[in-house]
């Protein structure tokens, strides 16, 4: 039994008087794809941001590869190098080309020599299918392309785990597919992933385990089949029922 790559213990976070995380604990093992679903505003994004300490939890501890992220003197910057994050709003660096975006972490943080960084960056862009857009600026790319560059940027750092915060929520419907394809490919290659998403098809197809969160707590956890078909908690059924209504019974038959 390999040690969990990410371990989260009893996280609490409140903004003002609103408690967003009310005691969340979980573990993610190597190669696992964990998908977190739930209504908006229930702390899913906050949870992700607590894992790489972009948000500091009020209470609770987080470990990455056995190293405690939340320790008072932890080298957070160093830890973040091993956690890749993909944001809903892409957050590509607007003043750098696609290639520049992937390179900047390599040259400035990992202190790679420029030539090596250049080659690695091109490799990552190729991995997401955008090597021919390397010299374009973010403003010149479509939403789907921007997000794929963002994925390449995170991959370039050679992360142990990739965190995806609603990666397709800001995309036009026709552009969602290309991003999901890249994510599926990563999963096949064995990347450890934690994904917050509303894309149920992706969840069902790719995840090893799913978590349903509401009101800052984990309501139910388990393999996708469990949550989708014989959920233990009524609220899970209710939430997924409403979602699968959109997809219809057809999808069940596809299985």
């Amino acid at each position: 039994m390999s040690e969990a790559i990410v371990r989260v213990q009893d996280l609490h976070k409140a903004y003002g008087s609103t408690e967003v995380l009310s005691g969340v604990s979980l573990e993610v093992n190597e190669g696992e794809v964990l998908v977190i679903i739930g209504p908006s505003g229930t702390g899913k994004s906050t949870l992700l941001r607590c894992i790489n300490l972009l948000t500091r939890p009020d209470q609770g501890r987080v470990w990455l590869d056995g190293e405690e992220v939340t320790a008072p003197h932890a080298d957070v910057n160093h830890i973040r190098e091993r956690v890749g994050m993909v944001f809903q709003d892409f957050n590509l660096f607007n003043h750098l080309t696609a290639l520049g975006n992937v390179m900047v972490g390599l040259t400035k943080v990992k202190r790679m020599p420029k030539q090596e960084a250049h080659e690695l960056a091109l490799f990552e862009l190729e991995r997401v299918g955008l090597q021919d857009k390397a010299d374009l600026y973010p403003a010149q790319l479509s939403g789907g392309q921007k997000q794929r560059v963002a994925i390449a940027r995170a991959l370039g750092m050679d992360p142990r785990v990739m965190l995806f915060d609603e990666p397709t929520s800001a995309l036009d419907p026709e552009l969602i597919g290309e991003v999901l394809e890249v994510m599926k490919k990563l999963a096949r290659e064995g990347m450890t992933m934690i994904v917050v998403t509303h894309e149920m098809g992706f969840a069902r197809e790719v995840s090893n385990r799913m978590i349903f969160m509401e009101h800052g707590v984990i309501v139910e956890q388990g393999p996708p089949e469990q949550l989708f078909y014989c959920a233990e908690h009524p609220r899970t059924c209710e939430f997924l029922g409403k979602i699968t209504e959109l997809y219809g019974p057809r999808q069940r038959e596809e299985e």
Partner: protein
Amino acid sequence: MDKLPDIVGSIPYLLEGAGYTVAITAVALAIGFCVGLPLALTRVYGDKLASSLAAAYSTALRGLPALVVLFILFYGLSSVISLPAFIAGCLALGVCSSAYQMELLRGAIQSVGPGQMMAARALGMPRLQAIAFIVLPQALRLAIPAWSNEAAVVLKDSSLVYAVGLAELLRRSQQVAARTYQPFLVYVLCAVIYFGLTFATNRSLDTVERAMRLPTPLEEMH
């Protein structure tokens, strides 16, 4: 109008004065930037105390007339240290400009979205690196129009150095006016030269802005 050739003949003398004007403006803007940028960064990223101190600096200096600051440096310090008019002028205008530049740079830094900083930190960049390589390159581009305004203001305020006797454009205009007994024509000429300088400044900064502009979305996507 028999004095016209006289006036035209004094143009080189006036333009020399304009040289001083441009010099003071350039030095003052540089001082303002070198002081204003760290202050702006302190105001945005510093802890509560540092940020409040920076804000207080800004409020205090933007509430003082440039002329008063100039006199404080030139006359006020005269018992301790005797500053030549040029230096007093540069320092006074520089200090005043630093407060305004701090505010405009602060605005520019804050309009670079917080997502940029988040993404940089998520890559493992320390704060200082993120500010230097991700936020500032974008903020400085955004700041150019407002900075261009500030440059024009400092250029015009440099005329205040007249009051401490520096032989810049306005002082020289006064001398020529006294000599030729044609104050109207000479001062209008002086105004025209200032106008030319302001115009040139705005135009060149416009060019800089266009050169630094990031490419806009292409008409057609792939």
